[in-house]
């Protein structure tokens, strides 16, 4: 059986020393091993940005696509081979700016994949511009007077879009993050995991220390029940979204694949491509 070391490759990440994404990479590798995957049965699809490079740093099948489109690519991969474990990943710009349309629709479609967002509240690879997760007033190269736009609340957004698995974590908490990714992989449906993954180079506000000070663990919230959407919404609003843990899970609703009529129970990628003559003749006769 594969261990987390089997999910390491020999590529050295080009992230800055201290970047939160290193822990996300390690957590994915550990979670993959913990759920019993072999490297060839995992496909990591990523977008563009610093975090988008992650698909190249894990020893698995990896697809580094175009900006904002990791989710439709990942859903296509999963539709083609339902036996693969598919993880889509990228940054907050990738998922909540250019790719937001896909994020909302992937949530409501509920294809059985896991989406991990490395949320650093800034555009790092383009050297420090505001992101849809930057707080109002946040000063960057593109908002020298401070951002006058409201930050997106991805967890609340996910809940209203009909998400079946919503979780948030902090990249320094490797144990918690690994457990959440494991739960996300095991969830039968679309799982959204937002990970606070600080940018040590361009974000001098939302630092490791800032998160430590401001984050609340849901396990410390008395009476929290992650099967209640109402409670999830209330708690998120109360804490301004700064909570970690499994926020909400709906174990009742079936995944897209389960609901899809006629969908092959074996991987579509192994389907016989030849139609038989009788089948073709029947199709053609409908046009006579």
């Amino acid at each position, binding site marked *: 059986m594969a261990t987390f070391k089997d999910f390491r490759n020999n590529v050295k990440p080009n992230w800055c020393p201290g970047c939160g994404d290193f822990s996300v990479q390690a957590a994915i590798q550990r979670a993959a091993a913990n759920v019993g995957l072999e490297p060839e049965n995992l496909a990591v699809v990523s977008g563009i940005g610093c975090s988008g490079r992650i*698909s190249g740093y894990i020893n698995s*099948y*990896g697809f580094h696509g175009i900006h904002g489109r990791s989710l439709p690519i990942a859903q296509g991969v999963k539709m*083609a081979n339902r036996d693969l474990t598919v993880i889509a990943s990228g940054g907050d710009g990738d998922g909540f700016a250019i790719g937001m349309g896909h994020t909302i629709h992937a949530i409501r479609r509920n294809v059985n994949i896991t989406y991990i967002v490395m949320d650093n509240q800034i555009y790092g690879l383009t050297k420090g511009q505001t992101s849809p997760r930057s707080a109002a007033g946040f000063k960057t190269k593109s908002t020298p007077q401070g951002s006058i736009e409201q930050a997106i609340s991805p967890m609340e957004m996910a809940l209203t879009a009909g998400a079946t698995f919503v979780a948030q974590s902090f990249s320094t908490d490797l144990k918690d993050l690994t457990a959440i990714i494991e739960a996300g992989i095991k969830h039968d449906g679309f799982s959204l995991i937002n990970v606070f993954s600080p940018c040590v180079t361009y974000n001098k506000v939302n630092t490791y220390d800032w998160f430590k000070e401001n984050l609340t663990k849901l396990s410390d919230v008395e009476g929290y029940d992650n099967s209640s959407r109402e409670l999830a919404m209330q708690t998120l609003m109360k804490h301004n979204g700064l909570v970690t843990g499994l926020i909400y899970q709906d174990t009742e609703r079936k995944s897209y694949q389960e609901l899809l009529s006629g*969908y092959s129970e074996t991987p579509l*990628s192994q*389907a016989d491509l030849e139609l038989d003559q009788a089948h073709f003749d029947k199709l*053609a006769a409908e046009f006579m």
Partner: protein
Amino acid sequence: MINQLSWKVGGQQGEGIESTGEIFSIALNRLGYYLYGYRHFSSRIKGGHTNNKIRVSTSQVRSISDDLDILVAFDQETIDLNYKELHDKGIMIADAKFDPKQPEDTNAALFAVPFTEIATELGTSLMKNMVAVGATCAVLNLDIKVFEEVVQEIFGRKGQQVVDKNMEAIQAGFDFMKEKLSDDVELMELEKADGLKRLFMIGNDAIALGALAGGCRFMAAYPITPASEIMEYLIKKLPALGGSVIQTEDEIAAVTMAIGANYAGVRALTASAGPGLSLKMEAIGLSGITETPLVIVDTQRGGPSTGLPTKQEQSDLMAMIYGTHGEIPKIVLAPSTVQEAFYDTAEAFNLAEEYQCPVIVLSDLQLSLGKQTVEPLDFSKVEIRRGKLVAEELPEIENKGYFKRFEVTEDGVSPRVIPGMKNGIHHVTGVEHDETGKPSESAANRNAQMDKRFRKIENIKFNTPVHKNAPHEDADLLIVGFNSTRGAIEESMSRLEQDGIKVNHAQVRLIHPFPTDEILPLVKSAKKIAVVENNATGQLANIMKMNVGHAEKVHKLLKYDGNPFLPHEIHTKCKELF
């Protein structure tokens, strides 16, 4: 007796004009006639003038006819907009309900038949279309029995009474019209057809059926005119094969989902029209640089922007060849008949896998939506070829090395493994990469990978890259076109021959890489070249000049008003060249 008839039915959109044409044409197709139907419609659900012009012939026709024999009108607007197409002995059959007025400058006869009144008396005004069909039969001296089968199929599930009522409506229309026809009105009796069973389908039907036959098992698409029929057909048919169609949130999701599915080993399709293709362009580049097979259908319509969304145009050609930033190998096919649309779509999936690049199947509104009689499709001609897809077990790679998915090979095509395969792990990225898929910016690697990718399409193997009809060794004129202009060109050709002009014809089916070797001899042996296309800038003509040269011979014959070419237009304009 006549061997060809042109019939048009028109009225307000949403009035059942389409179904009137449908019933009329299916019945005649089953008698063995060749049909060609073209709908004029607007981008709205109800209201607005719509018409369906149907040509019936004892031999293959693939063009709208120049004139009109019978016009069936459900409103005055239909008469006013269309009567000029009628020839002197043409007939207008109009619903008496709107008190039809005879236009002054036509000799065509007007008959007012109470379509609505007769139908209402029989039970419901909805059957006015049937009354009109019956009235037409009287002019054609056609036994209304030929409609029994079709009426049964359409209304059978509503019960025998509905079937009987509809047949009664046809009979009543027939009887009323027969009574009205005086001896000096010439009946338009068609010569008997051969009675052979043939398919009757629109290009989009053939594209969708071709995709199924070609092994497509997944489609991701966003609704758009005139491409939606492709997804609607596959939504009905793919579940029986274990596959599915996802209607995505947008065009970009559609193409990238198809890329993901192809990457993971399924033959996947996306289809759209110009606006969608514009949005898909970045992703087409991704397919190119990641060497992920991808089949995309572009059903061209009037552009730019929303343009003329329900009208004919062929203005996406350059965008399909050169679209996407940067440079990628790409294959662009342009079938010119419904048959070709079937075979080319099926073959596109082979080419996409063999050359590991995007393949665009170019269609246009006239081909995609025009309904034509099709000789039986030969399914045995459809092959499944998967190129260098690795099926056998792979040896272990030492030190966690990656599989050389982008190995530099002589023909440029690298072995391809799909996720799930042991020892095949590699990386795929839209960043320039080395043989294993790891990002690399080195100049030597860039050259090696670019050269490798372009080597793939140096020698594309494609059966019949140009449809040629070249009876003359030395021609006065070579007519060149692509997609649906073929029918009108063929008809104009025989007229030009009657005028004593020696004409060769080339319809380009493999648009890119351009089949220069195939066309060059025809270009050399012709005194003049007319490139016929539905766009304003002469895109195919320019591509011809670029690839084949002989620019001094090339004349652009263009039409971009939203309507397909009529044979007489090509005939007249070609004659003007001499």
